[in-house]
């Protein structure tokens, strides 16, 4: 079982699927609360413990398609390292790891948990985050429709055993009124090096904001965007059905941004091919030979290499290899893989070591051979 699981990358890292040259992954999140209890920020410790127990029992009893299973983690009982791993893995929010709610309440020992669908990690369920239940599904490429359909399946399964807080006018009730209604957030992780290099990124970001979309960094709210990775998601959740929101994002907004990015890439390749080729190979060169590397630098260089591979400038590197490195070089993943705590400098050395080994040039590749 353990060996078999090694062969399965997390679904969202596969680099496959529709428009995967630009859309790295799609994610759907549903916010739900259990009727009869205060929302998490206002709930007492006893309430939270009861909510946690009810959700945990429900989730662990749900029948999943074999061989998938839910893995449950009581976050208030585990060490920081495990919580950080789950955040780096995009399976839960930083806020949930800290146990702090946006009004400053809470702390590490607040009863809260997360369930992850094993082995491909395409579903995770946070319990006692800002809402009692935050269910997310995540897949490679532009796959919001299939993410939504799977999220709805698990949502219905949870609702089979728990009563949701629901109001005929406001829909699914949530702690923050900005999520009320469908409680649905559709997000895509976009890789936009073409728009960044052509200087059009700001224009697209502004246009996205004008359309009522949120633009965030790699790790969601408040995070920066090293390596031109951006998350774009809807903000409106009331007055439009799940299908309308889906159609807007998947058939209208995202294909447009994908089109702009592809046009920018083609344009740059047509006019500045030598410069881009040089930049892409310099990025790969640094990855292949550096002895110390910060997380942000690794992400930026991997981003440039990803662009080089997709543009046909760099051969023999698979996209999922780059995606896996984006994750494996995150601080806690590095330490857990090596099985020991590392200082900041040791992490930088270990990160460079790992990348060097994984991206080592094929034995027959030499600059001379390329020039010839």
């Amino acid at each position, binding site marked *: 079982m353990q*060996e078999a699981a*090694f062969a*399965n990358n*997390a679904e969202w890292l596969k680099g496959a699927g529709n428009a995967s040259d630009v859309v790295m992954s799609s994610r759907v999140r549903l916010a739900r609360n259990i*009727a*009869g*209890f205060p*929302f998490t*920020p*206002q709930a007492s410790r006893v309430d939270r413990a009861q909510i946690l127990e*009810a959700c945990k029992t*429900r989730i662990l*009893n749900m*029948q*999943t*398609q*074999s*061989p998938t299973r839910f*893995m*449950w*983690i009581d976050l208030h*009982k*585990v*060490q920081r390292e*495990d919580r950080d791993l789950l955040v780096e893995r995009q*399976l839960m929010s930083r806020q949930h790891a800290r146990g702090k709610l*946006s009004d400053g309440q809470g702390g590490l020992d607040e009863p809260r948990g997360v369930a992850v669908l094993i*082995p491909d*990690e395409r579903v995770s369920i946070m319990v006692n985050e800002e809402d009692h239940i935050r269910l997310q599904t995540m897949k490679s490429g532009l796959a919001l429709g299939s993410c939504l359909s799977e999220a709805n399946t698990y949502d*219905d399964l949870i*609702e*089979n*055993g*728990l*009563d949701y807080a629901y*109001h*005929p*006018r406001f*829909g*699914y*009730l949530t702690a*923050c*009124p*900005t999520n*009320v*209604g469908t409680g649905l957030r559709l997000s895509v992780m976009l890789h936009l090096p073409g728009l960044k290099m052509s200087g059009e990124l700001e224009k697209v970001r502004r246009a996205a904001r004008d359309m009522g979309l949120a633009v965030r960094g790699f790790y969601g709210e408040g995070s920066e965007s090293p390596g031109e990775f951006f998350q774009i998601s809807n903000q*409106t*959740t*009331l*007055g*439009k*059905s*799940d*299908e*309308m929101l889906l*159609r807007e994002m998947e058939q209208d907004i995202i294909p447009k941004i994908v089109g702009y990015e592809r046009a920018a890439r083609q344009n740059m390749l047509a006019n500045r091919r030598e410069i881009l080729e040089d930049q892409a190979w310099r990025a790969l060169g640094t990855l292949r030979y550096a002895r110390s590397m910060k997380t942000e630098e690794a992400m930026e260089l991997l981003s440039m290499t990803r662009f080089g591979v997709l543009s046909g400038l760099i051969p023999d590197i698979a996209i999922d290899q780059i995606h896996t490195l984006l*994750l494996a070089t995150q601080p806690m993943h590095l330490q857990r*893989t*090596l099985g020991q705590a590392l200082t900041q400098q040791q992490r930088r050395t270990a990160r460079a070591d790992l990348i060097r*080994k994984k991206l080592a040039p094929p034995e027959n590749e030499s600059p001379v051979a390329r020039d010839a």
Partner: protein
Amino acid sequence: MLCECGKHEATIHEVIITSDKRKVERHLCEFCAREQGVSADPYIPIDQLISATNYIMGQALTQPADADAKGDQGMEPAHAKKSAPSAPSPKSPTSCVGCGLSFAHFKKHGLLGCPACYQTFCDRLGPMIERAHEGGCNHVGKVPKRALQSCKARGDQSQIETLLGDIRQREERLETLRQRLAKSISDEEYEKAAMLRDELTRLTTLASVQVEPRPMGESIESQQSS
């Protein structure tokens, strides 16, 4: 560090926590790792990264996922234990009848206290919610499936109304949708119109509400093809 074979540098470091909580470490080179079925891939599944004592697994069953819908008793409805959201007070209340949260606290932190807050602060929340959702003020879309099915099966009209609203509210909502549908047709936004028509049909059939959608939705295809 050298691999167990003593020939190459160990690059794969595996830590296994056994069932009796012993920690077993292995340091292998890529060749030995491959031979022994240990992946040289830097990707490791999350259940092998999280300390083994820190999680529990659910059960994988062979039945399809939707089989769960049948025969599941579920937990005691939470609101059976606690008071259900109360009706709104005629005056504009300053704190929620359900959880005691003040409207001032909500304005400061942006978070409501409990489901009843929506009813309690309905008058003041309504316009704020409408602004936040680009004018959206009524929910359109999914309704809790099992809750609706079970009140329909019991013929529990009052429970149906807590989910879908009373007949007047439902008619109001249908009317809003009809207006949006008419507008999208006149704006020649046919895809949007088709979705609104579907929503209208769905909403009409959700409960046994005897309000038929007006035939204007049916003209979408004919207008599209014209």
